[in-house]
């Protein structure tokens, strides 16, 4: 069965065959110790990579490697073409109007900082307000605190409700005529909460504010269309969506990118350089100073091909199902309390929880002996921990290759943890 891709009829859809998908990820066959297979449930931190992506990296270095945009020789031309083809794939994946609006960075963090430097420092003034939320990752908090200290902007937070969703009534009061930028995550990495952008974006647009979305968790797991969302900037990381580390994306509307100053100065980002001054290259080159991460960008294109072939609707459906199963399965484990919304329609495949009487660090350590890899700590979202009044949580996060058997393994291993620490305070 193949289903037509609504965006690009050139892409052939594959059915969502879990067994076949798992065979594409060699690491899923790994054992953590003899007889202890890996159960990888730390996908919100980074995803595993399919053979196709790993092979593309090798193929590039073996057959094409050269610097881009600089040579007339065959390899340089090929490398440039592959690099630019990857850019086009990214653009199509998020339905960007123009391929040139895709800027390759290192990661989400760099993309967010790029906007804080090259856009906000130029266009925001003392007293202007930047609105973020209490459930942001540190990478969408710290750059704005730095800007506040340097420029005197006002930083405001949309608060979180006890169930892990955002307080939309408060948002209606906080987003006002002084709001110049709404910079908001589309999905919390600590709680999985899916943020209702369809409510928040119009509130900001009505005030004439610019909207940036931290898509680090949403782009890998949900269909994302920047035009339908009516946003201005989108930041995300390749490594969380089957791609290599070291590649991130900033998408921005061309008019905004055009008006911005460069981020870093150097080679590839200039039109001309004299001893006195330089003129900038066009977007995206203006923001890609120096030799970029060519190989990883190209392999990211392959990761996008992989996701495109499955279709993000099917990816989301699988993750919704597995999250729904996990929410119910974990709620049955004695001593487990789950944070965040209990409705799988309101959250991505991220479940933060605690286990009565056992510190998250100890949970993670004992689960590791069962091969189950989860994350423990504050998940770079300390304001969320503060709001939940916990020092840390344990977090299981899913991706397209996870199975209900793996959720069962998590649940039974958690019962073992309780047995091991039984009698603890």
């Amino acid at each position, binding site marked *: 069965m193949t289903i037509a891709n609504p965006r690009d009829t050139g892409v052939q859809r594959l059915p969502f065959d879990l067994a076949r998908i798992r065979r594409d990820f060699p690491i899923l066959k790994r054992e953590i110790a003899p007889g202890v297979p890996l159960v990888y449930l730390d996908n919100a931190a980074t995803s595993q990579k399919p053979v196709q992506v790993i092979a593309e990296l090798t193929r590039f270095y073996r057959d094409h490697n050269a610097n881009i945009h600089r040579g007339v020789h065959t390899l340089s031309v090929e490398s440039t073409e592959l690099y630019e083809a990857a850019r086009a794939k990214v653009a199509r994946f998020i339905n960007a109007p123009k391929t040139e609006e895709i800027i390759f960075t290192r990661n989400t963090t760099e993309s967010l900082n790029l906007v804080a430097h090259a856009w906000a420092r130029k266009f925001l003034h003392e007293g202007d307000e930047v609105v973020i939320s209490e459930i942001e990752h540190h990478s969408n908090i710290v750059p704005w605190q730095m800007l506040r200290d340097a420029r005197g902007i006002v930083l405001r937070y949309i608060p979180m409700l006890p169930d892990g969703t955002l307080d939309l009534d408060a948002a209606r009061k906080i987003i006002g005529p002084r709001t110049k930028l709404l910079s908001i995550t589309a999905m919390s990495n600590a709680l999985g909460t899916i943020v209702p952008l369809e409510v928040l974006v119009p509130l900001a647009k009505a005030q004439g504010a610019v909207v940036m979305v931290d898509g680090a968790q949403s782009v890998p797991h949900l269909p994302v269309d920047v035009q339908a969302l009516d946003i201005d900037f989108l930041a995300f990381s390749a490594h969380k969506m089957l791609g290599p580390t070291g590649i991130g994306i900033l998408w921005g509307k061309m008019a905004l990118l055009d008006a911005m100053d460069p981020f870093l100065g150097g080679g590839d980002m200039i039109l001309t350089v004299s001893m006195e001054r330089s003129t900038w290259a066009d977007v995206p080159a203006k923001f890609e100073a120096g030799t970029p991460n060519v190989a990883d960008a190209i392999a990211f294109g392959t990761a996008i091909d992989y996701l495109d072939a499955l279709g993000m609707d099917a990816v989301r459906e699988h993750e919704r199902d597995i999250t729904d199963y996990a929410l119910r399965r974990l709620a049955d484990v004695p001593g487990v309390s789950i944070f965040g919304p209990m409705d799988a329609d309101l959250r991505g495949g991220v479940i933060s929880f605690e286990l009565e009487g056992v510190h998250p*660090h*100890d949970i993670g350590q004992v689960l590791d002996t069962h091969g189950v890899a989860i994350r423990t700590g*504050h998940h770079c979202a*300390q304001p969320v921990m503060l709001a939940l009044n916990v020092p840390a949580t344990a977090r299981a996060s899913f991706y397209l290759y996870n199975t209900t058997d793996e959720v069962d393994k998590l649940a039974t291993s958690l019962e073992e943890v309780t047995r091991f*620490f039984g009698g603890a*305070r």
Partner: protein
Amino acid sequence: MSDGLMEDLYREIILDHYRQPRNRHAIESPSCSADGSNPLCGDQVTVSVVVDGDRITEVGFSGQGCSISQASASMMTEYVRGRTVAEARAGVDAFQQMMTTGTVAGLEGFDDIDALVGVAKFPARVKCASLAWKTLEQALNEGVVPVTTPVTTDERNSNG
């Protein structure tokens, strides 16, 4: 990771200190105290001591965190209580040494601590085990005169 490694980390004596921590209480008028934390994993500990002359006569801790951090804090208090400040500092050094080399500290008169030697094999947990010891050191570095809440001569005498 094998079960053997697990047993290296979670020795029975460690779990015992975790379940029944020693000297887990507040100290009324400490000579000095300090807070320590590992924000990344959420371990947090406060260590308070009463020093009389050059000897630690009282020590208590409070806080929350994983079994390793809390058990280590409990052991630390048992070790330093009744010892001189110089001996306590030597204990801190010996403990850090044990964490970096993975060989038992051989802290005279207190074998329990040697149970934590297995932590050295788990780099991610070393900072949990070290937290209370570093916090003790910090408290002692503040000096034996209370720095936060001034204490009257009378109070100091009554606790001395």
